[in-house]
């Protein structure tokens, strides 16, 4: 396994107290500071502060977990997709998400934390994932709303991450963003088709947008004055824009698209403020956000149960693959 080759690295909770800084650390810090000041890239073997590494592992693995848990609400509709073409597109999309999870786990592994450790953190409920995936996908139109709003918000969040200071993360994001833009377009197309369909279909589309609008806006995270980690992440060139800036940008984007769809965004306060050049949107229910993150969302238990069940059901298969590999290795050794 790749894990054995990697350096043990402090992860959340088991970090050793920092000893006195060695000459190597001092030189490393100077190099790191210069790279950040130049807006260049840190690569896996470069020296980096323990806190930078820890922040990245947390952020990248949360993102990876989100991709994996995020497969579930859409997988929920694959077997019921209403046309074969839509079924094929949805299958390809959910598969892409598994692929994104893999790139991201690989990026996290370059920081020294192996995938099985990260996976265990998820299964143990110690790691977080995007709270949006704890909302149920109730109708087919939710496939549209998830693509358009949820993937749309993800893109707004992730495009700046293509320039993240940590090389493997930034490069993984380039590919992910390309695929996400297809995903958003397919979501938009689903809604467009529904909004021009029968009255029942149009109602289905509006209902989905009504349910996903606010949770999608919350995907950018708490307001800037309540986002304790943002400042450091921006100083490290991991994060480029504040939560509120990104939320703004996203709202501006979807207002125009909603018009094309002929659907209404469920926000009575939504307006463009000419003076500040900003979109004003309604107050979001941050208590709900905190509740869902804390595990009290509609589907938290279901999502985790499914992930654990898949993992446990697969144990014998993974053990078999390991045993087979060992036998083959022995045969090669004996030959």
């Amino acid at each position, binding site marked *: 396994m790749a894990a054995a080759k990697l350096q043990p690295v402090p992860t959340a909770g088991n970090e050793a107290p920092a000893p006195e800084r060695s000459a190597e650390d001092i030189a490393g810090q100077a190099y790191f500071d210069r790279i950040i000041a130049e807006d260049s890239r840190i690569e896996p073997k470069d020296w980096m502060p323990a806190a930078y590494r820890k922040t990245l592992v947390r952020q990248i693995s949360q993102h990876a977990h989100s991709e*994996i848990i995020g*497969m*579930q609400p859409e*997988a929920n509709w*694959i*077997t*019921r*997709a*209403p*046309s*074969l*073409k*839509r*079924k*094929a597109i949805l*299958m*390809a999309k*959910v*598969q892409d998400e*598994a*692929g994104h*999870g*893999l790139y991201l*786990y690989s990026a996290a592994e370059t920081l020294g934390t192996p995938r099985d450790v990260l996976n265990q953190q998820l299964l143990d409920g110690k790691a977080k994932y995007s709270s949006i995936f704890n909302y149920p996908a109730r109708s*087919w139109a939710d496939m549209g709303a998830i693509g358009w709003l949820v993937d749309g918000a993800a893109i707004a969040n992730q495009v700046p991450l293509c320039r993240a200071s940590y090389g493997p993360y930034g490069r993984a994001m380039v590919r992910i963003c390309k695929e996400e833009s297809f995903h958003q377009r397919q979501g938009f197309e*689903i809604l467009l*088709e*529904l909004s021009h*369909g*029968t009255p*029942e*279909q149009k109602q289905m589309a509006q209902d989905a947008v009504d349910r996903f609008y606010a949770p999608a806006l919350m995907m950018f995270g708490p307001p800037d004055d309540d986002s304790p980690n943002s400042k450091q992440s921006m100083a490290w060139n991991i994060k480029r824009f504040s939560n509120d800036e990104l939320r703004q940008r996203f709202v501006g984007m979807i207002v125009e698209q909603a018009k094309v769809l002929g659907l209404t965004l469920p926000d009575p306060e939504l307006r463009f403020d000419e003076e500040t050049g900003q979109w004003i949107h309604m107050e979001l229910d941050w208590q709900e956000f905190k509740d869902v993150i804390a595990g009290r969302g509609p589907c938290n238990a279901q999502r985790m149960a*499914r992930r654990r*069940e*898949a993992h446990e*059901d*697969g*144990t*014998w*298969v*993974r*053990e*078999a*693959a*390991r*045993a*087979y590999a060992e*036998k083959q290795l022995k045969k090669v050794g004996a030959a």
Partner: protein
Amino acid sequence: MTATHASPDHSLDSFGDAAASATRVTPGNALRPEDIAVRPDKPSDDVAEYALRLGDDSLILAQRLSHWISRGPELEEDIALGNIALDLLGHARSFLIYAGHTLGRSEDDLAYWREEEEFRSAWLFEQPNGDFGVTIARQLIVSIYQHLLYSRLVNSSDTMIAAISAKALKEVDYHRDHATQWTLRLGDGTEESHERMQAALEFVWPYVDELFDEDALFERLGDAGVRPSTLREQFDAEIAAVIDEATLSLPALPRAMGGGRRGLHTEHLGYLLAEMQVLARKHPGATW
């Protein structure tokens, strides 16, 4: 038929060699279901019936396999099984669209608005996923069978059947490799995996024979189709080799009666179709 099967029909040339000579595969220039939909080709009634059988086999299995996405033993398997399902769905769409040109129905009419007894898939394809071992055992049989079948169908006298088969052949070759690799690992892995894989083979084995059954359709099809009985010897040899290398034993079990080609199915298909068709049927006439 010869490998250089010369056809005066050049209308498929734009799809590359895969379609034009039907004996070679040109990656990146493959025939897509959407391409077939806009073509005027009408199969004969018999070829349409044959295309329905081929399409239904793949459609029903794609529906089964797609259930694994987000439930696999590893992320890599979510992707692999999803990929196989997606390939099979592509083959199904191509065959159903082609059949539909004669039947006067779209791929979605055929998938969503036929009743259970109108489906022409064999029983193996509708068998439940079971554990990962059952899914792999089913896939091993299907992939070896389809690989042999499409290897011959690329020379079909029906140009479109040949073209679809040429595309499918390249893909089922990967499916066969995937199922073989897993059969070896599960069979020759741990004691538990060996037992499970043996049980899995025994679960699906009764459904093998139906794949090779023949009826009057094959007499009428002539060179447009492939008599499945002519594939049996090679199938037996190939699967025995994999099973043997996997330290498993070939089950000796009586065959299930079969009847899928005549629309007589096991109880499993009704539930599968109920799930697949429910949304489309709630909204008659809607487009998606």
